């Protein structure tokens, strides 16, 4: 890790000093244990702030999109000959690079507007898992030592195996090494337990309909519609989300449970073939809503119907925005006959 961090800082410093990028989006130390914070570095001398560790939980691709688009907006009234571009450097692990690929495929910005510093990834720590293992006691300090994480809480110290607190999406990740990069730091990360990727979805699919529905409604009851999930998601970049449109208003703003469900169902379906299972939405949700179960089902469908994994390769177009003669369409014309 230290080695990766050292290289990372050197590369970032060089990119900024050589004016290859205007800003580097990375992670820096937070003020609380188990936390790192997205940071935005413009001064080469600040590159030393960058960290790379098991607490880097968020997918940073969202910020790349925001920065480039905000800059473009600021250029709208500028004369064509005076227009400038903003080039963003980003610290990107596997899932982040897949999100960047999706942005590029969806023509959100040009390849030369982003400089990708690829980092190998061994998974991030899910804060909720740690909190559960220490019975919700306040965590005062946490440090990773080898394959353990040592936690100091208000009622004593505890060592927890790292694998017990790694986020679910990371445990079975196929792409823990970047799929695309301009600079790579560190050595390739060892493969994860990829064969069990769909275990939890398979289990859920086999439950009776009523049980699945009641699980869905129970989870959605927790949602306070803060939209943190949507706002952190790199694939959710609509300028005005349907939930905030008022003419017409697609969903109400009150506390009607169906409004929450409609928001979630619509958002999830917009993720079909576009969710990279980065786990950011789950990690940032303040209420602990299990979004992954449902998103993973859509991912599995995409894989089984179209052999597609979101953002896997820039040359592989997304199934829902392309048509091929061989595409399955039986489920459209004879929905009853397919499961």
């Amino acid at each position, binding site marked *: 890790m230290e080695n990766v961090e050292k290289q990372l800082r050197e590369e970032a410093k060089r990119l900024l000093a050589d004016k290859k990028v205007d800003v580097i989006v990375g992670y820096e130390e937070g003020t609380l244990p188990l936390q790192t914070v997205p940071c935005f570095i413009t001064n080469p001398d600040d590159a030393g702030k960058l960290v790379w560790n098991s607490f880097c939980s968020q997918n940073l691709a969202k910020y790349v999109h925001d920065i480039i688009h905000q800059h473009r907006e600021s250029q709208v009234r500028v004369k064509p000959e005076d227009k400038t571009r903003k080039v963003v450097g980003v610290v990107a692990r596997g899932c982040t690079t897949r999100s960047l690929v999706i942005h590029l495929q969806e023509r959100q910005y040009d390849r030369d507007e982003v400089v990708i510093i690829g980092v190998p990834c061994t998974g991030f720590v899910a804060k909720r898992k740690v909190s559960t293992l220490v019975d919700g006691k306040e965590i005062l300090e946490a440090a990773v030592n080898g394959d353990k994480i040592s936690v100091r809480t208000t009622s004593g110290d505890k060592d927890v195996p790292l694998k017990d607190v790694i986020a679910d999406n990371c445990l079975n990740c196929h792409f823990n090494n970047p799929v695309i990069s301009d600079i790579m730091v560190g050595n390739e990360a060892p493969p994860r337990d990829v064969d069990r990727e769909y275990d939890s979805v398979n289990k859920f699919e086999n439950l009776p309909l009523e049980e699945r529905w009641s699980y869905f409604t129970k989870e959605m009851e927790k949602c306070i519609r803060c939209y943190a999930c949507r706002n952190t998601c790199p694939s959710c970049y609509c300028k005005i989300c349907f939930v905030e449109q008022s003419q017409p208003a697609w969903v109400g703003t009150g506390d009607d449970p169906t409004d929450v469900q409609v928001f979630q169902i619509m958002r999830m379906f917009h993720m079909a073939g576009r969710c990279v299972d980065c786990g950011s939405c789950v990690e940032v949700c*303040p209420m602990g809503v299990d979004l992954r179960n449902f998103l993973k089902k859509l991912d599995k469908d995409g894989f089984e119907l179209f052999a597609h994994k979101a953002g896997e390769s820039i040359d592989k177009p997304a199934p829902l925005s392309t048509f091929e003669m061989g595409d399955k369409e039986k489920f459209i014309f004879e929905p009853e006959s397919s499961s």
Partner: protein
Amino acid sequence: MEKRLIKKDALSGIINKLSEQMLVYAPVKDEDNVLFKVLEKGMEPLADYSNTRNAPKNFFFPKTETMMRYMRTERGIELSGEGEGAPEMVLFGVRPCDARSFILLDKVFDQEKYKDPYYIDKREKTTIISLACVHPPYSTCFCTSVGGHPMSSEGADVVLTDLGDKYLAEFVTPKGEKLLEKMGDLSKADDAAEATKEELSKKSEEAITSHVAGREIKPWLDENFEHPFWDTIHQSCLACGTCTYLCPTCHCFDISDEVKGSDGKRIRTWDSCMYWLFTKETSGHNPRTSQKQRWRQRLMHKFKYFVDNFDAIACVGCGRCVMYCPVNIDIRKIVNDISKL
């Protein structure tokens, strides 16, 4: 002020007895959160807990509230209210910071110039039993920096202090004293109990480890509406509003109409300065177009405008926004960074 002693093992019985006579909300465990819920038969109120994830402000200022209903008929529009008003209730187990937040909310919703009948009705009919913090529950607590205290009775009608084997119960307000009548016979508190409380109070205050320069930054805020510092806070913000939704003192709201066929209702919902729709006008114009401006509003509102208007900081130091911000934007750090400018 009446003072009584309650044996530890008798407390839950007393609270349960109250819940037979009126609505009692108490902290209970719900999956991995602690939330205020209606106490029903057989439920144990938690007396030994840190704090709830949500602030209790929703009891007086609900997240969604119907203000009126209307119906289009052949004779015109018919208006109606929302039933008979709030029931009598008890809020048990409120932390001192949250109890104090009600005093701050009163300044907004129950003042000379504006009286909010929806808020006032509920507030008047509720008796608040707070649980003093004999240990600050979190390392992020900073009540003492913003005018509060871990053992403060501000905003409470009854204060319970854990003395080890028993609670000292202080009935601070007339509302609290009325509740005492419903609690049955309790032995009077002696001087020793009060001396112990004094001691605990000092210890608890010393155990607070987070300190912010709450009042000290006011002169800087007065002068620096435009300053490069404002460019450094908001960049990672997800604009999720978690900080404002969980905050006991945030109180911005929005009013909208929901119409189905010929029936409609006017609802008031929480708003948040973190949202891009905040202060967006019907014309399409928004005086605050960026997250930078919105974050400045959040800080200014708490540490300057509220102080200008009501001579109090609109933050009680509960630390919720610090603990639950998904990207760890820490108001303690921001305030302290400003104090160093």
